[in-house]
């Protein structure tokens, strides 16, 4: 039970923050003179999802059913990208931890590469890989790769010298050291990286869909705006943001459950970087 108490507390804070934001949104729209045709409130979004008649198509169930495939496509784009990014970043970090030469050579290059703006390279990635899941995955993988590579590399090097000595004293080799000491001590760093990477992949996937595709949440955000279907537009905005927040929440929850009791308070390394 003690393990769940901090989780409950942080869930409550998050819910309270979200409620404050939703109330602020509702009040801003109700009290100002913005056009109710363009601007929808949280209550309108609830109506869109659950109340028949106000929006098109008439049945709320039909509107919800139309959302499901969009969410599915976006989740697939983001999921494939996240999986690729995590795998590559782990492999890269382990390689750099095993070979000092690799680390001194490629870490500075990785630092330089991550300053190249993704939005500028997206058209090039599109030109090379064409339309489809590969491009979506590459874009989502790039936003995952750099924060994870930096965090996990730092994490693998963060094992305390005492534990490293202990493994050596008992005759453990490089692999034992990696498996028993370095990887466990990199876990908090891995989660810190994932907390940035998971919502960022949702953001990258929707950005890809918006720029280059006709399916998924990102593309429908664009088309619903062109068709002036503002009920759908605002609902999609809520759904997309909710997905990104859920991705963060899942990682944060997994972090609490995996790390609590096993490590001293999670030394949360806050890696900078916003989804771009």
């Amino acid at each position, binding site marked *: 039970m003690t393990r769940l108490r901090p989780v409950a507390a942080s869930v409550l*804070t998050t819910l*309270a*923050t*979200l409620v*404050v*934001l939703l109330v602020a949104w509702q009040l801003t729209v109700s009290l100002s003179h*913005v056009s109710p045709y*363009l*601007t929808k409130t949280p209550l309108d979004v609830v109506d869109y999802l659950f109340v028949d008649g106000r929006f098109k198509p008439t049945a709320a169930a039909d509107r919800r059913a139309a959302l499901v495939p969009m969410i599915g496509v976006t989740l697939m784009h983001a999921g494939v990208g996240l999986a690729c990014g995590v795998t590559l970043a782990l492999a890269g970090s382990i390689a750099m931890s095993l070979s*000092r030469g690799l680390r*001194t*050579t490629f870490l500075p*290059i990785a630092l330089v590469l*991550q*300053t*190249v*703006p*993704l*939005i*500028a390279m997206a*058209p*090039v990635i599109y*030109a*090379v890989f064409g339309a489809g899941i590969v491009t979506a995955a590459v874009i989502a993988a790039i936003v995952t790769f750099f924060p994870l590579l*930096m965090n996990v*590399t*730092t994490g693998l*090097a*963060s094992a305390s*010298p005492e534990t*490293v*000595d202990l493994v*050596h004293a008992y005759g453990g080799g490089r692999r034992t050291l990696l498996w028993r000491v370095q990887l466990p001590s990199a876990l908090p760093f891995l989660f810190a990286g994932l907390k*940035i990477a998971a*919502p960022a992949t*949702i*953001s990258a996937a*929707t*950005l890809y*869909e*918006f720029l280059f595709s006709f399916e998924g*949440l*990102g593309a429908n*955000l664009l088309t*619903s*705006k062109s068709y002036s279907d*503002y009920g759908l*537009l605002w609902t*999609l*905005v809520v759904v*997309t*943001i909710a997905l*990104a*927040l859920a991705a*963060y929440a899942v990682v944060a929850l997994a972090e609490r459950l995996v790390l609590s009791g096993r490590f001293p308070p999670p030394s949360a390394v806050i890696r*900078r*970087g*916003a*989804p*771009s």
Partner: protein
Amino acid sequence: MTAPSLRLARPSRPAATAALTVVVAIVVVVAAWHVVAVTFFTRENGTPGAIPPPVAVLARVAQNLTDAGYWSGLAATAGAALTGYAIAVVIALVLGTAVILIPALEAFATQLGIIAACIPVAAVSPIVVIMSPSGSRAVSVVLAVLAVIFPMIIGVLLGLRAASPTQLDLVHVYGGTELTAIRRVRLISALPALLTALKIGAPAAFLGAMTGEFFAVGVDAGMGRLLISQQYVGDYAGMWAIAVLAAGVSALGYALLAAVAAVIAPWTRHLGGGAR
């Protein structure tokens, strides 16, 4: 950022050798880039394809730098980025002041930052566009704010916590007021975290402003718009040149703030942090 090396690692090589390795690695990467570009990405008429050779890109960068159109585009995007940056800094400082007055708000401020960092750009941009007049750079400004606000809030909160209780007690024991404590202790100890956040925020703001131009309606100047127009005509060397220029501007913003930080708080000089 630099991780403590494991004890088993060999003593570090002299800095000169390390620098040489990096230079060699960069040369290898650029050479590989050239070979790939020439072998696989040259069009039938001999012009560069999706991946142009490095020399062509650099020549294009040099050519762009003599073009007044690029300078005005750069200024337009940088203007939106600066506005967003300033707004984000003000919001973070207001939140920080609120947290000093009511410490219970700290969890709320952190959550707000996390939510801002999670929001996908494709979700927030269309609603900013429909609510702002045509030709407005509001999307660029909002995306710059969202990109900067998370590192800024975290920086401010870390800065607030940096003052040691002993130092604060000392001020109070000698009869200093809360104001003296803020002026003499809190501000000084908050500087390192604040300056790091300011440095990280500069490239993020430019990137956010550039991304915003992909969504804006009726805006025809800016780095993002230049990129879009080159995408239409398939001018890949031009697109790569813009990526290089954008990375350069971001790095310049970072370096400028680092220089300012070195002057007003020389003891924070060792604090790094890449850009993204």
